[in-house]
């Protein structure tokens, strides 16, 4: 019994460490069918795509785009083909602006890495 508990402790600590260190994108954008993008936050919070997305510059922040629509979409400097998931890694703080084809109200999208 004691042995099982010890093994269980090791597994639990390793799982927590894996969960804490597993690389996550700083921004998770999903485009469902119909082409209006949403930002998925932690704890299952979903937000309409804003015109400006602020990204914390710690490390090398990544932007993940999951495009479930039937056409290619461009979101600022980034893009994803139909059915594709792409991750972009931003190297440095700055402002990244470009055309947006998946925005509900705006034709441009800006990422501010700070």
């Amino acid at each position, binding site marked *: 019994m004691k042995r099982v508990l*010890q093994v269980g*402790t*090791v597994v639990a*600590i*390793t799982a927590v*460490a*894996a969960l804490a*260190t*597993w*690389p996550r994108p700083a921004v998770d954008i999903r485009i469902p069918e119909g082409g209006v993008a949403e930002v998925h936050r932690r704890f299952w919070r979903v937000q309409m795509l804003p015109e400006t997305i602020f990204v914390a510059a710690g490390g*090398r922040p990544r932007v993940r785009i999951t495009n479930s629509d039937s056409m*290619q979409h*461009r979101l600022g*400097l*980034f*893009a*994803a*083909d139909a059915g594709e998931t*792409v*991750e*972009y*890694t*931003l*190297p*440095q703080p*700055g402002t*990244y602006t*470009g*055309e947006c*084809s998946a925005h509900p109200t705006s034709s441009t999208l800006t990422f501010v890495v700070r």
Partner: protein
Amino acid sequence: MRVLTTRASALGALVLLALSACGEPAWKGISMDPSREIPAFSFVQSDGTTYSTSPEAGRPTFVFFGYTHCPDVCPITLGEWSKAKRTLGEDGERVRWLFVTIDPERDSAVLAESYARQFDESFIGLSGDAETVAAIQKAFAVGSYQEPGASDDDYLMAHASQSFLVDGTGVLRTMYSFNSGVDAMVSDLQRLLR
């Protein structure tokens, strides 16, 4: 035994941390995963010859989409390219620098070529028919559209402002946002030219 368990747990966590930090060196530009394979496109040049963008081993390619009437983004970007090429020295000659017009209505092949050459003799300006231009824009996932001007032929084009770096196998490796300086470009090019 408890000490051993704690140490084993700590070791496991450290291994995970180390694994997450591993991988190939980071690009200085904006990288993407998965990388995008770029198909080859052909353009007819002003002397009637065909220029193909098909990859050449050991020769990375820089690509930018713009137009010759551009008042701001295009001249600044090509100016940065020129600076990057000078910084690279002789290695800069191994890079293909391609300026592709997104305004083929006004930019003939000769105009695109002479415009690109203003910034460096080795820069290649390309213009093509609307279908080819649209296809290469789709491959790089960049858009453009005409903004109404004072007359039919006096208009501005809204267009993507980033530069793209394609390696010698035709894979898009990184891109650089407008006016982000030449250091990242030069560093990534040196990595590809090694």
